[in-house]
C-alpha cells in the first residue's frame, strides 16, 4: 500500500502508472525564468497609485516565501511517506518546479524592488507582516503535525498525513495560490504587469499539476483504506478549509482595503468560497458555500489561448518530442 513504511525501489512491474504518466507530462512542460520578460513591468510599476503599490508589494512578499514553504513540506513530509518510486519521481520533478518558482519570484523581487532593504523586508514578511504571518503560521501548523513521524504506523498517523497532504493541495496550492493568481490576472485584465502574468501562467500550470497529483495520491490512499476518510476527517477538512478561507480573506483585506476598480473584498470572498467549494467537491464532499465566481478575468483562464506572436510569446509548446523520421507515417 502506498503509505506503508519503507523505501520501495521497484519500478517494474509498476504499481501506480498514473503517477509515472504525470511525471512524464510534467517533464514536457519545462520552462526557465530567463524566458520571462519583466522589462515592461517596470514602466507599469512607475505609474502605480500608492494603493496599487501596496498591493503589489504585499503580493510579491507572499510569493517570496510561499513556494519555499511548499518545497520544504514536500521534502520533509511527503517524500518519505509516499512509498512508491514512480510517485517519488513525480515529487522530485515537483521539487524542481518549486525551485524554478522560487527563482522566478526571486528574480521578480530583485526587479520590482531595487532597494536592498525593501527586498530584505519582503523576505522577512513571514515574521513582520501580520496578514502574511497568519498564512505562514497556518502552513507551519500543518507541517509540524507530521514532522515528527518517522513512519506512518497506524490509522491515526495516516489520517494526519492525509490532512497534511490535503492542506497543501487544497488550501495552500489550491487556495492561497489561486487567490494570489487572481490579483495577477486582475492586473493583467487592466493591461498591467504583463511579465508577471506570463510567468504566472506557467506557475499556474505547474501548480495545477501539483494539486492534481496530490489529489490522486489522496484518491489512492482512500481507495486502499476507505475507513481512513471518516466523518471526523470530513469535519477536520471542512474546518481546515474554513480557516484557509479566513486566512486568505484577511490577506485580501490587507491588500485591497476598501476596494479598487474591479477588485473588492466582497468579490474576493465569493471567489475564495467558490474555489474552496471546488476543492471540497474534488474530495467528494458537498459544497459548503454555494458562491459564484465573480471574476470575469478568471473565466478567461479556462480556455485555449491563441497568441498573436507579434504580441506575446506563445506559451503552449511542449519540450520533449519522440520518434524518428518516417516519411510514410500518417499525420
Amino acid at each position: 500500500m502506498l503509505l506503508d513504511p519503507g523505501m520501495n525501489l521497484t519500478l517494474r512491474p509498476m504499481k501506480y502508472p498514473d503517477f509515472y504518466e504525470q511525471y512524464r507530462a510534467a517533464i514536457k512542460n519545462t520552462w526557465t525564468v530567463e524566458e520571462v520578460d519583466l522589462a515592461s513591468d517596470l514602466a507599469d510599476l512607475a505609474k502605480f497609485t500608492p494603493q496599487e503599490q501596496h498591493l503589489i508589494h504585499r503580493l510579491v512578499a507572499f510569493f517570496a516565501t510561499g513556494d519555499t514553504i511548499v518545497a520544504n513540506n514536500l521534502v520533509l513530509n511527503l517524500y518519505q511517506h509516499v512509498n512508491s518510486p514512480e510517485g517519488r519521481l513525480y515529487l522530485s520533478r515537483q521539487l524542481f518546479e518549486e525551485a524554478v518558482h522560487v527563482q522566478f519570484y526571486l528574480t521578480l523581487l530583485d526587479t520590482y524592488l531595487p532597494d536592498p532593504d525593501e527586498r530584505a523586508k519582503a523576505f522577512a514578511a513571514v515574521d513582520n507582516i501580520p496578514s502574511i504571518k497568519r498564512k505562514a503560521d497556518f502552513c507551519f501548523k500543518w507541517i509540524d503535525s507530521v514532522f515528527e513521524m518517522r513512519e506512518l504506523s497506524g490509522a491515526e498517523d495516516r489520517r494526519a498525513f492525509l490532512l497534511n497532504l490535503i492542506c497543501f493541495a487544497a488550501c495552500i496550492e489550491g487556495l492561497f495560490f489561486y487567490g494570489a493568481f487572481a490579483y495577477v490576472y486582475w492586473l493583467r485584465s487592466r493591461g498591467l504587469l504583463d511579465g508577471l502574468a506570463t510567468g504566472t501562467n506557467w506557475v499556474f500550470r505547474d501548480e495545477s499539476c501539483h494539486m492534481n497529483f496530490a489529489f490522486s495520491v489522496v484518491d489512492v490512499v482512500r481507495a486502499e483504506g476507505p475507513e481512513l476518510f471518516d466523518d471526523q476527517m470530513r469535519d477536520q477538512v471542512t474546518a481546515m478549509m474554513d480557516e484557509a478561507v479566513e486566512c486568505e480573506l484577511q490577506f485580501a483585506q490587507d491588500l485591497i482595503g476598501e476596494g479598487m476598480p474591479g477588485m473588492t473584498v466582497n468579490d474576493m470572498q465569493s471567489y475564495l468560497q467558490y474555489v474552496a467549494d471546488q476543492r471540497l467537491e474534488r474530495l467528494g464532499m458537498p459544497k459548503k458555500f454555494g458562491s459564484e465566481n465573480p471574476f470575469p478575468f478568471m473565466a478567461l483562464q479556462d480556455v485555449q489561448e491563441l497568441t498573436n506572436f507579434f504580441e506575446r510569446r506563445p506559451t503552449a509548446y511542449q519540450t520533449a518530442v519522440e520518434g524518428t523520421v518516417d516519411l510514410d507515417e500518417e499525420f
Partner: protein
Amino acid sequence: MTGLASTTSAATTTAPAQRGDPSGGEVAASIAEKIRVHAAGLGDVDAERVIAQVQGGIWPGATVGDLRERAIEITAASVASEPTYSKLAARLLSEHIAEETAAEGVASFTDAIGACRDNGLLSDELVAFVEAHGPELDAVIDSAADDRFEYFGLRTVYGRYLLRHPEHRTVLERPQHFMLRVACGLSQSVAEAAELYRLLSQLAYLPSSPTLFNSGTRRPQLSSCFLLDSPKDELDSIYERYSQVARLSKYAGGIGIAWSRVRSRGSLIRGTNGHSNGIVPWLRTLDSSVAAVNQGGRRKGAACVYLATWHADIEEFLELRDNTGSEDRRTHNLNLANWVPDEFMRRVEADADWSLFDPKEVPELVDLWGERFDTAYRRAEAAGKARKTIPARELYGRMMRTLAQTGNGWMTFSDTANRVSNQTADPQNVIHLSNLCTEILEVTSDAETAVCNLGSVNLAEHCTGEGFDFARLEDTVRTAVKFLDRTIDLGFYPTAEAEKANRKWRPIGLGCMGLADVFFKLGLAFDSAEALELSTKIAEHIAVTAYETSAWLAEELGAHPNFNQTRAAEGVLHLDHYRNARITLPERWEAVRGRIGETGLRNSLMVAVAPTATIASIAGCAECIEPVVSNVFKRETLSGEFLQVNRHLIGELKERGLWNETLRQAIVVAEGSIEGIEAIPEDIRLRYRTAWELPQRALIDLAAARTPFIDQAQSLNLFQASPTIGKLSAMYRYAWKQGLKTTYYLRSRPATRINQTTVGAPQPVATATDEEACSLENPESCEACQ
C-alpha cells in the same frame, strides 16, 4: 463564516453605494439605465443580470465611467454563454470612446482632424485635403457603422489604432473618424476616400496594420514586411544590417533577414589569423537589437532569420530557441526559418548523406537555385569542400524536433519559390528568403531590401447563407489593388534600400481572411471537396481581378520599371507553372494576358495570404485561410485577454433548440472541441471540427489547390496536438511534394495545463484499485488474470 461576513461588510459600509442595494447610489442607478438602453434590440442579452453583477461589486469612489468599464468586462466574459453580449460590450465601449473624445472637443470627423493636427500628429497633405473638403467628408461618415463591430474588434481599434493625445493619452478620434482618416491619407478626391472608407467601415476589406497605424500621419510608413538580404561576410556589412533592421523595426515593419552568406564556426579569419565563432554570436546581437526597438509601444519588434540548409552552422541555428542549454547560444526573440533546397528533400527521401558548407568556401551557393544549385552543390561536395557530412534524415529529424519544441524553424522551399516567381526570369535576380510571416517571396540583394504592402479581403462579409457573392468580391479587389498600389508612392521608407526596390518592382500582397466563416455559413466541412472547390475559385477570382486591375493601372500610369526583367514580359504568368490548376475563368485569363503583353503590369507581384491576426480581430472573422483552433478560446494580446466564441456554432445549436448551460460547460471542459459531445448531432460535429481534429492533409491540399493563384505565398500554419518526429517528417515532406512554397508555425498543445477554475470541479477519479483493465504496464494490480 459569520466572523468573516462582519469584517467584510465593515470594509464596505463607507461605500457610497452599498452592496445589495441597487438604488443605494446615483451611480448605481445611472449605470443600470445605460445598460438597459444599450441592451435594447439585443434579444438574448439579460440586462438585469449584468446590472446586478455590476452593482454587486461597487467600491468607494466608483464613478459611472468606472462601472461602465466593469460592465464591459462582465459582458465581454459572458460571450461564451451568449455571443450577443459581445455587441452589448461593444456599444458600451463605443459610448465610452465618444465621451473620451468629446472631452477633447471632438464630435465630427473634421473636429478629430483638427485635434490631431493641433497635436502635431498629421501630415500637412492630409490636413490640407481635409480642410479643402471638410463638409463633404463629414457627410461621408456612417455614424451607425460602429454597431458592426464585435467587442474584441472595437477594443483593438480603441486600444491600438486610434490616434492619442501626446500627453493626456486620451483618444482624439472615434473609430469611424480613424477609418476615414486612413482612407483620406491614400486618396486624391472625396469620391476615392468615400470608396475606400465604405469598404473599411463595412469591414469588407482592411489594409494591414502599418497602413492603419500610419496613413495620413507625419511618418506614413505603410508597409508590413521588409526582406533583407544576408549581410556580406564582413564586419561592416553585418553592423550595417543591424542598423537597417532597427530603422525598419521602429516604424512597425516585420523583418525577414537571411544570414546564409556569413561564414560558419571555425572558419579562418585572415585579418587576425583567428577562427570565427560562427553565426550564433551575431544572431545574439540581432536578438537584443530587435528586442530593444518596440515600435512606439504599439507592438514589439519581430524578426525572422532565414538560413540555408547547407550552412555549416545549421545545427546550432536549430537550437537557438531551446529553453535549455547555455544562454549565450540562445535567441529568445528571433523567429527561425529553414531555406530548404529540393536537393535536401530528395536526399531525405533517398536516405542519403547531406553535406554542410562554410559559405566562405563556396560563396556561389547563396545566389543559385534549381539545377544550377544542384550542380554547384555536387561539385563542391566532389571537391571535398564540405565541413561536415551527415545523414540527411538526421538533420531533417532535428528540424522536425525544433518545430515540435518551439513551433519555429519554419520550412520554406527555396527552389519552388524561385522557379515560379515572376521576378526571377533573369538569373541575377534571386529570392533569398521569405518574410516574417512566410507569405512574401521577393528578390533581394545587398543594395535592395524587398518591401511589401498588404491588405486582406474579409471573405465572410462577401458571403450570405445563400452563397458567395463573387461580383462583390471583384469590386472589393479592384478598389483594394488600386489603393495598395497607391501606398507604394505615398509611403515613407525608413531606408534607401527599401525605397529603391519597392519603386522598381512595385509588389503588393492582397490576401483574404474569414475563409472558415464562409465554410460555416455555407455548411461546408473544411476537408470536403466542395470546400476545396470554393476556396480555389475564390483564390482564382481574387487573382484574375487583381491582374486585370494591375494591367489597367499599367495602361493608365505605366508598367513598373523592372517589368522587362519579369516572366510576365516573356508571356509567362504565375498560373502557367501549374499544369493541374483548376481554372474556371480561361477567357478572362487569356484577355488579361493579351493586355499585359501590350502594356505590362503595374505590379510585379499581387497576391499573398498574410496571417491577418490583428485585422481579423478588428473585422471579427477567422484568421486568413485557417480553420478555427477551438470553438471557445481566448486571445492574449498586448491590450489584455479576450474571450472568443464561435457564434456560427452557437447559432446552429440555438436553431435546433440544443443550446443550454450544460452544453456550454461541456464545450469549455472539452477546450472548445465538440467532437466527443454526443448531444450535438453528427453533421454539426463534423463541420465544427477544430484545427487539431481536421486531417492536416486537407489543409495542405487546400493550400496546394490555391497555389496557382497565389503569386507570392501563404502563411500556412499546420497543427499537431501531440507532434512526433515521424508525423512531422511525413507531413512536411507531403507539403513539399504538393508544391507549397512555404509553411508557417507548427502549432502544438501544452502537455499539461491549468486547472479550470470556473466550470464544475471534477469528481474524484476512479483509482487503480477501483477498476483497472488488464494492462501490461500494471500487471500486479490486475486481478482478471490471477
